[in-house]
């Protein structure tokens, strides 16, 4: 294969991966952030202790985390069809990607929020701050560097998941690697795909680290 032949394959595949991961990241943050906050707030020694409810949430999160992504993707096909009306194509795979990443990100959010010292939380309580104010003005801003680091890890994991989605008809770089690298022995294209993924992941990780460092004032 020449570069002229590879480029029309690589470019759309990269765009598909970017779209899948981008949308999935957006929905993961929208759902996973509140879930992570809930895991901390409703904990036994949280701001609003509801231990039974927190255990229930934790259990659901653990189910999501214990299923291998490829199994989860197949298992929730009916749900995907319900949400987007189809189970193939890039848009359809945003659903399993989000479902797979939300529990993962929620646990990282939980860990980041727990890093915030109890002393600042209690200081805020002593100043008469409401629970909502403590979450919005203390927990989330203080944990921001950790949240950014968690998001970076999640995006990288999503790129990994999206390659698996490729094998079931989701398109993207994973799909390209399977069809050309595995089924047609196009070694050069395979190598280019691998390098491309490496570069994308490295760039994202460096960007995430840089932002987290900029936000940290320790």
């Amino acid at each position, binding site marked *: 294969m020449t570069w002229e032949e590879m480029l029309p394959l690589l470019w759309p595949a990269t765009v598909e991966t970017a779209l899948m991961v981008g949308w999935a990241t957006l929905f993961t943050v929208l759902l996973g952030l509140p879930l992570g906050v809930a895991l901390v707030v409703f904990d036994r020694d949280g701001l609003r202790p509801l231990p039974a409810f927190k255990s229930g949430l934790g259990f659901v999160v653990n189910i999501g985390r214990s299923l291998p992504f490829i199994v989860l993707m197949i298992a929730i096909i009916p749900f995907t069809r319900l949400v987007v009306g189809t189970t193939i194509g890039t848009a359809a795979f945003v659903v399993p990607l989000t479902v797979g990443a939300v529990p993962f990100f929620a646990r990282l959010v939980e860990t980041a929020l727990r890093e915030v010292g109890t*002393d*600042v939380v209690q200081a805020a*309580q002593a*100043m*008469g701050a409401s629970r909502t*104010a403590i979450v919005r*003005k203390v927990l989330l*801003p203080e944990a921001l560097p950790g949240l950014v680091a968690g998001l970076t890890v999640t995006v990288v994991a999503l790129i990994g998941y999206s390659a698996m989605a490729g094998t079931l008809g989701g398109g993207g770089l994973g799909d390209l690697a399977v069809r050309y690298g595995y089924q047609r022995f196009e070694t050069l294209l395979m190598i280019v795909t691998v390098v491309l993924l490496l570069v994308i992941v490295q760039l994202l990780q460096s960007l995430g680290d840089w932002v987290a460092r900029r*936000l940290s*004032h320790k």
Partner: protein
Amino acid sequence: MIQASGLRKQYGTTVALDGVDLHVREGEIHGVLGQSGAGKSTLLRCVNLLERPTAGTVTVAGQDLTALGDRDLNRARQRIGMIHQHFALLSSRTVAGNVAFPLEVMGVPRAERERRVGELLELVGLEGRGKHRPHQLSGGQKQRVGIARALAGNPSVLLSDEATSALDPATTQSILALLKRLNAELGLTILLITHEMNVVKSVCDSVAIMAQGRIEESGSIADLIRTPGSRLTREIFPLPEPAPSGSVTLTFTGDPRQPVVSEVVRKFDVDLSILGGSIEDLAAGSVGRLRVALDGAEAPAALAYLRDSGLIVEEAP
């Protein structure tokens, strides 16, 4: 100003507070002195209900806090400042942002907030530092930010949780001087807990000594010093305890340059040997304590004379 009665706090089977009564008058600096584990931190945290006591009531500025719901309690807490051993500043905010935090919580509009933050930083001697980050400041400066933040809501009461324990001696003195100034200028009532006698000596008007969840002794420093056998007196002065048999311990208050001892020796037929003694400068004035052995036929008369001169005379058996 602060009235706690019958406070009990139990964690499982551990009793942290075992029936504590605390009374802090308006405008005074009241210390709670005790070793770690004595329950003083729990006591302080019960005053603004960061810990809810198992039994007992807490009244601050005439309001029974234990009877309030969440919303009213938060409003009451906005009028009770608190400073912390490790400062508890938000690293995500600048110095000005930290001081503005309680004002945001109270819903003060932005322009008003900025004006007030400027005033507060000036009050604690940090003008021009508003844009700094907490990690760029020294320990003493961080505590000044903590104090400015605690004063934002114009509180009538300031609670200090070992506020100088993480600071070096010179910085401790400067923070204590600031607290004393705020007490005098703003009429701020301060309740502070500490394990350092030095803090009590330098700023407190009154003190409660705590051990094992109970208050062992409390009252104004001046009164306790005059109470024979008080724990406070024994702990302030570095004289060996118990006093050796037959010795007499004299406590002087007021002007330390009273020539009473030389008068006694001149007036009575006694021999006086000095066993030990020191003079301490307290917030309440200078106090001297002298341990002597008094021998001779007129020793009882000499002791009576010392008592009449206003000294506190304690005779060891």
